[in-house]
């Protein structure tokens, strides 16, 4: 809980355009007293990684509709969505479905 957490982030489907084109990010979330959850992760991403146009990634508390989130290759709806508590070495993938095929 107090230790910094290493997270592997991936962006796909066009979402990487908002992050300078980089698809993979290895980040370390700093120490804090409560455990990190997805809601805080989104705020952290918006503050530290998002280079432009935040409204294209985040909407309110959650991600913009149309952006899928996978936590360790499972749908985040099965993990509790925003309330999921992050653990060390978790793999979080954000895929934008707004540019189709």
């Amino acid at each position: 809980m107090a230790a910094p957490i290493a997270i592997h982030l991936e962006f796909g489907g066009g979402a990487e355009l908002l992050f300078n084109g980089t698809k993979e990010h290895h980040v370390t979330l700093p120490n804090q007293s409560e455990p990190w959850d997805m809601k805080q992760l989104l705020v952290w991403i918006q503050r530290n990684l998002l280079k432009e146009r935040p409204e294209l990634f985040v909407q309110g508390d959650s991600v913009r509709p149309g952006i899928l989130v996978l936590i360790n290759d499972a749908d985040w709806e099965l993990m509790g969505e925003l309330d999921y508590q992050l653990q060390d070495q978790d793999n979080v993938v954000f895929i934008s479905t707004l540019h189709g095929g």
Partner: protein
Amino acid sequence: MCQVLEEYSDELESAAVPSVSKKCVKCKEARAAVVIRAGDAYCRGCFKDYFIHKFRAMLGKNRVIFPGEKVLLAVSGGPSSFSMLSQVQEGLSQNAHKKLRFIPGIVHIDEGGAVGQSMEERQRTLAELQALFRATGFPFYIIPLEQVLDLPNSVLASAPSPAEQPSSTYKAAVDHFLQSNHSSCATPQDQGQTSIPEVQEPHTQILQQLIISAKMLTARQDLLSTLRQHLLVHTARSKGYSKLMLGDSCTRLAVKLLTSISLGRGAHLAQDTGFSDSRYGDIISVRPMRDYSAKEIAYYNHLFHVPSVFIPSLDTKMPDKASVQRLTESFVTNLQADFPSTVSTIYRTSEKLHTACERSSTVDHRDTCLLCMCALDTAVENASAFQATLISEQLSQNTSSSATRTKIPTRKLAPVEPESVAPTVQCCSSGGREDCGRAESGGGCCSSANGAETSNLRSLLCYSCQLTIKDMSTVGHLPQYILSEAQRRHRRSQMKAAIGEFLLEDGDEGV
């Protein structure tokens, strides 16, 4: 009810949230990984089976693609089309249960010139795509959109469709194919391209000028998709393919359905969003991915490592209100977040649409739209909605009260002909100081040529294509094949009007 941010905290009970400990609803053994539709959680294995099965079932149920046929896959680079490509590969592989039996080819239209990408960016993307296409082993063609400037007129002519093959012969065709060609599928005669074609800089500029001549993003996107469609059909025809496979997903088609209604294409919804589209006559487009939501496709691609290349389009990173297409996409996606059955409801509605009348192979060219090749829906009857829009357009124009201008243009060509045939009427002299934009006759005036061309063109278009053309500042930038086909049809209808009374009507033929 359909407001996006409305709160429902009191009235609705929240659905039971499926949790990570939930088992797959299908096999009930493995841990669930994906939530499909509203609340069905599948494990990886069952999801893969479900996904693959759906593709086969879609093709098998519709029985449009016959064994041994050459089918061209239109791959734009995005997830849906690459998913379609991987399903085709999967289906053709030797160890597949119920193998697919057609001969595929791949085509990719490079639109970087119209979108404003630099040559280096385009080359980079194309190199990536080329490597991926080569790995599949199918013949592939990478065609820059600039080639649309060189298309022949025949693209817009609907070729006669092949004889109708009823589904009862489908089974016979399959049996025959199995008996005669049991060992392996025929190797394709052509190997596709070996190198990425060069693009001339002036062509790119002409294309960009064309796109920019449409002022609004809505019209630009519409124009771009029309040109892309023409190029796809031309490629399929010239390389000998009889079917075209498009990778539109369920979500995409739901958005397209609502967008089409907003743009005035309601009459053509069945062809725009249905499984098979036979408006070109000899080439039939099919949409095998129309049952997959964008979420399912994205999951499958991620979990099973299907590559895709992200290519920006005209509305990338645009705000919500930039175009009708963009706004509708945002509306449907937002609604889907709160009401997960939105997209499938719209999809079911589109399944119920059918074309009202079957097109016979002898349909007259005048009866189809020049650009989208659907049946013309602009017959102006008294008290029709279309006539009302024309009247209000007339009244809101700032024209003089000269008698020639208040005439409402009708699709019936006989009354219109005398005005446009007579080349000696000078629009400037009749209207005096007025602008010649609305001229219906050719003349020696500066902008009257454009006005005449525009109105000539408009009489050959369906309602929504008219709206797109109306938004363009000048139609002169349209590719040559469109303009010359327009003139050809116009001359034909003039000629037909001139000899009209000597022709036998279809109804007059002996029984």
